[in-house]
């Protein structure tokens, strides 16, 4: 293991007793669209350090294009990393190939955003949920059938519906099918990428509550990715805030609410309305100038400096490292806590 003695990144947070997943200096670059001659690179994930404690939910929040989904996909190895390391327990996943990688995949599963696009419309629900069992040679026939029915009950679907097709289900029920498929191999770690944002508001709470119940029941560890800070804070023990390929703040949900350290976290928090007309009459959102810059050509030094309300000269010259500010809290800002 390559843990440096001076443990100052969130990947080596000493307050975590039992990290299940550790992400160290992870980078994911894509060639930018624009043809063969284009040398442009999309800096989707640019040097991320994170750890996820056994049994916790880590929320990953950020706006569109910040790289949060890419990071999730690299962590489950749906995408290869450009550089950096990814430890699951103590195994470096980035070095795994073949049979060992396959075995790891049983323990790490993903729930997707779009319950319409992530289920094969030509397969029955039974086939969809049992496919991982067949792929990994876990069980077949009667045994697999029993397991599928058990999983359907667990996620709140009628087990008699195994022979139906995805189109016969509503969005919320389809998301339950996706969850059953993710759980059928009895994984330890789940990456859930915007699992409720495609659903009707009246259905979202059903899925949030289900994910919480399943976590308690099966001792799952979650990485919960979403753009909505309220949902992320609600479901997560700790929260990581991402901006343009970088993590800018990490800390426990409650202390981030009480005192955001990074100006971007503060801006995000102030932008979200609350369902209370009296509080809304008082709330003054901190408005940002301009739009999120392109990850092809991110700003120098601190990537937020072009829009930050408290940016100084140093912010465009020296990149602030994501460093420990308080116990268990990290922020990448020269003026943390000053907005």
């Amino acid at each position: 293991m390559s843990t440096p003695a001076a443990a100052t990144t969130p990947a080596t947070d000493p307050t975590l007793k039992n990290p299940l997943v550790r992400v160290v200096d992870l980078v994911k670059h894509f060639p930018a669209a624009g043809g063969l001659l284009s040398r442009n690179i999309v800096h989707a994930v640019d040097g991320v350090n994170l750890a996820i404690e056994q049994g916790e939910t880590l929320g990953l929040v950020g706006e569109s294009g910040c790289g949060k989904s890419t990071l999730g996909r690299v962590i489950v190895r749906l995408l290869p990393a450009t550089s950096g390391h990814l430890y699951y327990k103590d195994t470096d996943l980035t070095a795994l190939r073949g049979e060992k990688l396959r075995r790891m995949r049983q323990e790490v599963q993903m729930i997707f955003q779009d319950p319409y696009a992530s289920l094969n419309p030509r397969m029955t629900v039974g086939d969809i949920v049992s496919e991982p069992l067949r792929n990994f040679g876990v069980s077949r026939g009667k045994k697999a059938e029993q397991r599928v029915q058990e999983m359907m009950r667990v996620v709140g679907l009628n087990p008699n519906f195994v022979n139906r097709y995805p189109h016969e289900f509503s969005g919320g029920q389809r998301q339950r099918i996706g969850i059953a498929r993710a759980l059928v191999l009895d994984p330890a770690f789940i990456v859930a990428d915007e699992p409720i944002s495609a659903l009707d508001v009246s259905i979202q709470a059903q899925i949030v509550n289900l994910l919480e119940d399943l976590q308690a029941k099966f001792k799952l560890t979650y990485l919960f990715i979403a753009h909505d800070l309220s949902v992320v804070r609600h479901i997560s023990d700790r929260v990581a805030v991402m901006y343009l390929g970088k993590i800018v703040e990490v800390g426990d949900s409650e202390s981030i609410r009480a005192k955001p350290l990074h100006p971007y976290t503060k801006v995000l928090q102030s932008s979200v309305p609350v369902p209370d007309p009296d509080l809304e009459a008082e709330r003054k959102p901190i408005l940002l100038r301009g739009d999120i810059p392109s990850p092809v050509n991110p700003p120098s030094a601190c990537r937020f400096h072009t829009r930050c309300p408290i940016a100084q000269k140093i912010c465009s010259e020296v990149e602030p490292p994501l460093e420990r500010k308080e116990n268990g809290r990290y922020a990448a800002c020269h003026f943390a806590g000053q907005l």
Partner: protein
Amino acid sequence: MTALSLLRLIPEPGKITSGRILYGDKDVVQMTDEEIREFRGNEVAMIFQDPMTSLNPVLRVGFQIKEAMAAHRRFTSAQAEERVLPMLQRVRIPAAKERVRDYPHQFSGGMRQRAMIAMGVSNEPSLLIADEPTTALDVTVQASIIELLRDLSRELRAAVILITHNMALVASLCNRVIVMYSGRIVEEGPTRAIFKNPQHPYTWSLLRSMPRVDEVGHERLVSIRGLPPDLSKMPPGCKFHPRCRFRIDKCLTEEPTLDEVDPGQYARCWVLMKNVKNPEAEAQK
């Protein structure tokens, strides 16, 4: 759909089968084609969820705003031309002078929505219908669009209809609220009353089904069981009864009327939340 009806924009084969839409003392349903054109362009502006599908991709943004003004003949072409840049500045498009000649794809989502708003308010309407205007936008962009709508409606003294699924946005922007379920108004009243003292179980549950960004500690969300009904196969009685945790026998057979429950507040419910003991515990069963 209700908003589209207001402008008589319902796609075929849908139609308004009965009822009246009174704007001042004119009935929109009875207007001639010429009158409805005037009404749509000069009195009402509509802002849609997805600005990219509402803007023509092959025409410059400035030209489209000018066209919208000229089409309704409130301004001559030359006047309209002159008004384009101030309109873009008014909706706070940065470096508006350089952006007038841009095409929609060169704009970000937030800027496109600003351009749509500029187009909508360019004729100084007295009614602004915003249909999920920020749903496709990031939350920091949403905040600035909502500020813009608030300021513009004050400057224009225009009424605003905000159509949204986001209750927090309602609390932020609206004086009064109408809650709809399955094609019916189920609750209506001043914003403060609706949020502090909701009487319809649907309103009550919706408010507790969404996590709040200022939540302290962890409270389990109230989930609304089941699904919204298929509009072609509506249940008998109250349309919400299959999902309601507080229903009584009467709800299964008889549809409630929209009755005043407090001064200015109306609810369509036989039970009403004020008559439910310990609703929180009931809702978690």
